[in-house]
């Protein structure tokens, strides 16, 4: 290919090969990002680890080196294991709810429906809401004195007295999971819907000619086509639900008792109300390790996808 070779050879100067100059240009483009990464992510992560080896007051930010004492204390701490369990419950339940609602709505919105564009916009809406807005609206609906939900429930005789949505366990956890499900299922819907629209109609036509039922069409065509996107969505939502702080903190603050205190909230509680930076950092490190595990799974799945596509 002489046409290509000539200008490139012409640009060879300073003894640098084309590959080296390309690499250098790549680095230059990456440089601002790399700097930010080093200062704002890599260095703080190392700091987290370093602080987790100290008994340190948040007020003075001074403390003694205690080695792994903070970690040892965690393993014996009922608060930690409680929060760990609550994180597990929270993540699993949120995920199940979001996947169920998300896939259901995607299937419905992919089919024929009157005013379908409006329906899609409305379904998407909760996802666009700021968490603070979602919390305000739901706290108002859940309000024990003026809440509309309790009014409806009493009016239609579904329960004898007002339901204690947020002031009792396990109600608080359930209510908060419902809100998280409501707020985040559109993510699943959108992702699945995008994939559904990409399934060639010819596949269904062929199946219909073969006399396949609606159910078997779903099972044999739709689901296999969705499998990759579902895998990705499940991992992403698991990660995001696991690290959720804002929604739970604003909704319940971790209470009542500690019934909605997940690991992120426990970190906050240790570092600020309890002013114990070291043990907060230790919990953060534990969370980090768990996240790395999730990350591994996600990255593996991601690479498989990439390879499948480039094939």
């Amino acid at each position, binding site marked *: 290919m002489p046409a290509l070779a000539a200008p490139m050879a012409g640009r060879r100067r300073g003894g640098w090969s084309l590959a080296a100059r390309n690499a250098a240009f790549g680095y230059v483009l990456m440089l601002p990002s790399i700097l930010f990464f080093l200062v704002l992510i890599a260095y703080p992560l190392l700091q987290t680890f370093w602080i987790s080896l100290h008994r340190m*007051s*948040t*007020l*003075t*930010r001074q403390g003694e080196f205690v080695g792994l004492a903070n970690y040892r204390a965690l393993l014996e701490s009922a608060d930690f294991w409680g929060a760990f369990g609550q994180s597990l419950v929270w993540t699993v339940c949120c995920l199940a709810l979001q996947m169920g609602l998300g896939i259901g709505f995607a299937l419905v919105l992919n089919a024929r429906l009157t005013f379908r564009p409006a329906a899609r916009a409305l379904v998407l809406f909760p996802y666009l809401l700021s968490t603070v807005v979602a919390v305000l609206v739901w706290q108002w609906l859940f*309000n*024990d*004195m003026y809440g509309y939900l309790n009014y409806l429930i009493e009016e239609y005789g579904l329960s004898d*007295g*007002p*339901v*204690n*949505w*947020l*002031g*009792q*366990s396990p109600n608080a956890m359930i209510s908060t999971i419902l809100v998280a499900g409501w707020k985040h299922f559109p993510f699943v819907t959108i992702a699945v819907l995008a994939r559904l629209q990409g399934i060639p109609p010819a596949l269904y036509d062929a199946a219909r000619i073969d006399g396949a039922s609606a159910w078997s069409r779903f099972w044999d065509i739709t689901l296999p086509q969705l499998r990759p996107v579902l895998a990705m969505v499940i991992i992403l939502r698991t990660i995001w639900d696991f690290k959720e702080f804002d929604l739970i903190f604003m909704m*319940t*603050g*971790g*209470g*009542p*008792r*500690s*019934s909605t205190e997940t690991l992120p909230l426990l970190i906050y509680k240790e570092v*600020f*109300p*309890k*002013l114990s930076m070291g043990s907060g950092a230790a919990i953060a490190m534990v969370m980090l390790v768990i996240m790395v595990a999730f990350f591994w799974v996600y990255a593996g799945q991601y690479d498989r996808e990439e390879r499948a596509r480039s094939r």
Partner: protein
Amino acid sequence: MSIRVATTRRALLGGTGAALGLLAMPAIVRAQSRELIFWTTQRAPEQIAAYKAIFAGFEQQHPGTTVTVQSFLEEELLPKLAATLAAGTPPDLISHMPPEFVMQLNEQGLLQPVDDIIKAVGEGDFYENSLELLRDSRRGYYPGFAIVNSTTTGALWYRKDLVGEAGAAGYASWDAMLDTTRRTNRRGVFGTIYPFGKTSMGDKLLLQTIWRAGGYIINPDGTVGFNSPATVAAFEFIRDLLKYSPAGSANYAYTETVNGFVEGRAASAPYSGRVLINMQAQNPKLADAVSVVPFPMPAGGRDVFVGDFQSMVIPRAARDQELSKRMALTLLKTDNYVRFLHVTPSHNLPNLKSVAGSAEFAANPTIARYRPEVDTMIAATAKGRSLLKESREHATNTHAGAILGSRIMVEALQDVIIGGMSPQAAAARGADRIAGLMKA
């Protein structure tokens, strides 16, 4: 010759003066563009407005300074202080800090002694119970002083009309309160509001209930006393009472409590005199239907209340201690002090005897209108104590701030009510956790 010397001396003197002036210059220059930051936990709009008006006078007397008023929840104080200390922008003066936090901060060397201010006002003018509370006897100074001598939990507000209709006995004892609460409870109106959210209100009210049952959190000998029959009795009493309290009480703090009572949705509720202000403003129909009694106690209990003793402190990191002190003194000047107290009359009671007994303080329509109620609150206040020093015999408990900060006490109550734990088990668990904190 001598003239020369004299000149030289004069020049020297002049030079020294100029040099001193120069040395002082940076301070002046700094002062000219100084933003002074004032923190408070009193957050009602009218209170903020009063602070701003008082500091407007201060700014006039100290040209070049501007005072910024910032308000926080009690729960936010220490986290926010930590954040500003880290950022190097600490507040110059903090008002209405719970005294337990004062001693906790003092232990870490973060506060400036305020003895000068106390002396300037007159040590004898402060109520003794507040002074003894906030003395660092080991190092011999006061790290803060209480700006109010009132109680938010000691007074139980009630609706005369509802109690009368129900033909109830009133609130003279625990049993009477339970009976009255049961009788006044109906759809739309709760018999009482007993807040037990994980907030300072929840902690204070529980602490007071345990005290009035005769118990201690820490015994006078320094051992943990939380696991006692008094605590168990308090848990059982509260559990009965909560049948008539709103469903969400486990998340209630100050705001929800005062709102519920003022909007007429509860027959009784503990609170400070803020009830009177909000009632007159938001629900004047009921303004004549309310009155107050001391929060009841069982037979054989100990007649004490949880006093607020919310205090004024100067962070050691504040940039100009002198200006901070002057800000504090400005707030303590009788006219300013009364002005602030009068925007929420009877909510904050003064901690200066001269102000409490003054005609200016009494000259307020709300205080005049509700004189018996205000007297009830003043009487309760006189029996106020703090977790710092649960009785005269107790040594100052510097871990009190940590005990409050961790909300162990009210969590033990939540264990009983929400977790379904037996009162005995919850008291034992709480005691263990407190013991853990005391060791730290």
